């Protein structure tokens, strides 16, 4: 993989800022990212492909009389960087003033991050990755011959990020990540299971490829012979993937300050109020050790921090980037993020970092063991069609199993779960102690009472 070349990126960023200001910008910012990665892809039971990519580029924000212009390029030469800066300035001049614009972030000192870079990941050869993928595939095959490894793979990535602005911010960071994932189905005669999925993602080289294969296969086999159930109101235990889907399009947006300011959040005016069960404590922690979204600073150079969002059920804070913070005289919580095909091609938007639900003291088995009749839900389908403003959702649970007399029983199919995410949070009756991270969400299993299920 390409070595980080931070000094070079910082030089280019400074040049872009200087050019934009020289042309007449009131303020300017350069964001540069360099991502490289290698992956081994598994499809339909075999390793079929090896992929390597390098993607680097620069995005420039220029502000002129409160109007913001942006331009990017993936050509990092002095000339193209200068052109991008000029184009950003021209775009600002062509645009309309943003009356809420105050200024770009000023320099602040950054906190420490731990467990976010591992040289072993940088040095991994593609041959070693092939062996890791083969090991995961072998575990699937060994588990049960009715299981098909539909799709999956192993991949490493390394990323360098630089932010420079005309107010004196000069920030740089490097990070690594490694992940392996496996999607399976099981087929027994005419009985086909829904897709099941397991993943392990880490910032340091510590993944259990064999465990991922075994678990993905176990889920598929135990999803065979699914039955329909009648409609009713049940206690439901949500595993992380299902919980994450439910929250991603609802709560995780509702706590963003821009949603609140634009009346798109049901949590508006609820600071200090009880919005969830007392068992619910949530931090947005951009400095979480080894967190997948951990970084020293956000994508506009504001220090990452740990923000208490919900404290024992009481809403304490929203999440801010500098724009939404400036609008109401608050401080940014370091939640600006550039997402999209390439970070450098995107302007900052407000996003949670590591969105962390504090664990309970019960083992996962106990959450299930206390349920007489209920459901264990590993995933939900259709969460992106939730009502983003009200938190109302209506999703298909899959894969999902019945809980009977405190034991996980047979698989279920065709059951929809409907409700409002804020009722779900109020009806939480227990958290497990099995915390893991999936994307932004860091959480254990959670049990929720009185969830409405629509079956046959």
């Amino acid at each position, binding site marked *: 993989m390409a070595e980080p070349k931070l000094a070079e990126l910082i030089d280019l960023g400074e040049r872009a800022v200087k050019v934009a200001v020289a042309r007449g910008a009131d303020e300017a910012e350069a964001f540069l990212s360099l991502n490289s990665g290698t992956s081994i892809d598994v499809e339909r039971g*075999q*390793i*079929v*492909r*090896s*992929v*390597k*990519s*390098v*993607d*680097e*580029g620069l995005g420039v924000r220029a502000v002129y009389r409160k*109007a*913001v212009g942006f*331009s*990017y*390029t*993936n*050509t990092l030469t002095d000339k193209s960087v200068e052109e*991008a800066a000029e*184009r950003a300035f021209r775009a*600002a001049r*062509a*645009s*309309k003033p*943003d*009356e809420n614009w105050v200024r770009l972030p000023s320099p602040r000192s950054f906190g420490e991050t731990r467990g976010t870079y591992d040289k072993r990941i940088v040095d991994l050869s*593609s041959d070693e990755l*092939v062996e890791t993928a083969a090991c995961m*595939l072998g575990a699937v095959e060994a588990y049960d011959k009715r299981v098909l490894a*539909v799709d999956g793979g192993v991949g490493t990535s390394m990323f360098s990020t630089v932010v420079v602005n005309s107010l004196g911010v000069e920030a740089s960071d490097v990070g690594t990540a490694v992940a392996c994932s496996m999607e399976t*189905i099981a087929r027994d005669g005419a009985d*086909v299971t*829904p*897709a099941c999925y397991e993943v392990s993602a880490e910032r340091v080289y510590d993944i259990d490829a064999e465990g991922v294969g075994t678990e993905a296969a176990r889920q598929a086999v135990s999803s065979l012979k699914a039955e329909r159930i009648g*409609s009713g109101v049940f206690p439901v235990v949500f595993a992380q993937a299902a919980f994450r889907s439910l929250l991603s399009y609802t709560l995780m947006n509702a706590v963003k300050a821009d949603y609140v300011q*634009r*009346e*798109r959040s*049901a949590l508006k005016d609820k600071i200090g109020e009880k919005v969830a069960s007392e068992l619910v404590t949530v931090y947005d922690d951009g400095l979480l050790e080894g967190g997948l979204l951990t970084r020293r600073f956000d994508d506009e150079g504001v220090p990452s921090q740990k923000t208490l969002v919900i404290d024992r059920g009481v809403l304490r804070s929203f999440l801010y980037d500098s724009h939404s913070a400036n609008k109401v005289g608050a401080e940014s919580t370091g939640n600006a993020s550039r997402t999209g*095909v*390439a970070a450098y*091609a995107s*302007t900052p938007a407000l996003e949670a970092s590591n969105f962390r639900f504090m664990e309970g003291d019960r083992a996962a088995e106990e959450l299930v063991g206390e349920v007489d009749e209920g459901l264990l839900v590993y995933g939900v389908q*259709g969460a992106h*069609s939730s*009502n*983003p*403003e*009200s938190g109302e959702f*209506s999703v*298909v649970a899959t894969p999902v199993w019945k809980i009977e007399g405190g034991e996980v029983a047979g698989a279920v*199919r*065709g059951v*929809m779960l*409907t*409700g*409002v995410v804020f009722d779900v949070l109020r009806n939480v009756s227990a958290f497990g102690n099995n915390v893991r991270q999936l994307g932004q969400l860091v959480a254990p299993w959670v049990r929720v009472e009185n969830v*409405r299920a*629509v079956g046959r």
Partner: protein
Amino acid sequence: MRDILTKSVDYGRGLGAEYVEVRAQNLFKTLLTTKDGTVEGAKEGTESGAGVRALVNGAWGFVSLGNPDSKLLTEAVDEAVRLAKAASLRVKSAVKLAEVKAVEDRVTANPRKSPQDVSIEEKIGVALAMDRTVFGYDKRIKSCTISYLDVTGKDYFVNSDGACIEQDKLYVWSRILASARENSVYASAREEMGSTSGYEVFDAETPEKVGTMVAKRVVEQLKGKTPKGGSFPAVLGPNVVGVFMHEAMGHLAEADLTLSGSILYDKLGEQIASELVTVYDDGTVEGSFGSFKYDDEGVRTQKTPIIEGGTLTGLMHNRETAQKLNMKPTGNARAEDFRVEPIIRMRNTYLAAGDSSFEELVEDVDFGYYLKSFRGGQANLDGTFQVGIQEAYEIVKGKVGASVRNASISGNTLETLRRVDAVGRDFELWPGRCGKGQIAFICDGGPHIRVGEVTVGGGA
């Protein structure tokens, strides 16, 4: 550019690759976002890069890079061949490609208005006019986000079979998202526009027309009731039929997913749907958001029948799956850009029109739902689908009645296709963006249809 690409492909063959292809792109993008009448950012960007794919001993190696020159491309070909060899050590069933005619062609876009010729000021003006229309419609409307994107540029494709294709790229896309609130009721609605013809799409889809449509939809929802949960007859509008054909049916007929065990696996030639159901995936619809002339394996696009009179007759292929199933490539291999390899994607996917009027669809329904416009949809390989609905109405005693909010339907794709008992004679296509690891621009649609029974969830 052509010479450099041809040289690197030849170099790859010299290294012993069975097949080599190089795709290169130069792209120019304009993006805009306005939020509640404020321009959040006027953005412009350039991207150039290449994706190199090599097939060696039945396995693939793929390398992507920015700013390819002759030297970097040669290194990338070396790397792709090396990666393919590493992957091939574990191959059980070697990848082979179906034969296709190697094409040399140059495809030019001929827009009446090129987005490149329209100033960013004018594009901002259109978005702000739409914003004013939305807010002017009703004071309960609280937010309006408008996104705009245009992409222009060139795609180059050269492979070791002798194909050499240069295609102009042109996309114009816009999305409008509005939310409204009245006391504790929140509602949201969205609409998308997209075209491969040119900026002239906004002459027909004026800011006033689109803005009013979205505003009306979101306000209508405020007084909507929540649906009863359970199984009901439903009339689906073209927009919902489209997302159903794309999400619930289409993905299962993408041959990579079919081979991965979707419920269509081993169903070719079988009656899987009501005989009223005929479905195409069609890359040839002029100017449509999912149309193009050659796919990213250099295969000519086509109108591919998937279901004809209820019988599964076709799948969507790339060269690899076509070979595996002994069928013909259909031109469905698409890559979002040079950063990623081509995979099987849909184009314009639709249900063919029938002969019923809208009144005929509705009049026999004693109690059911008219599902007019969707908010999102998703399906699983086992045929379980879910479609969220942003605009719905009750049907009571044969008449469309009160509006319903936050409905959602689910069921099994094949069971639902068998229950289609009437197909309308109208027809509409809707642009959208489909995610399958990569984003593809697509359209989907059809006529109004009636389904005897579908599970309706939603409400709280």
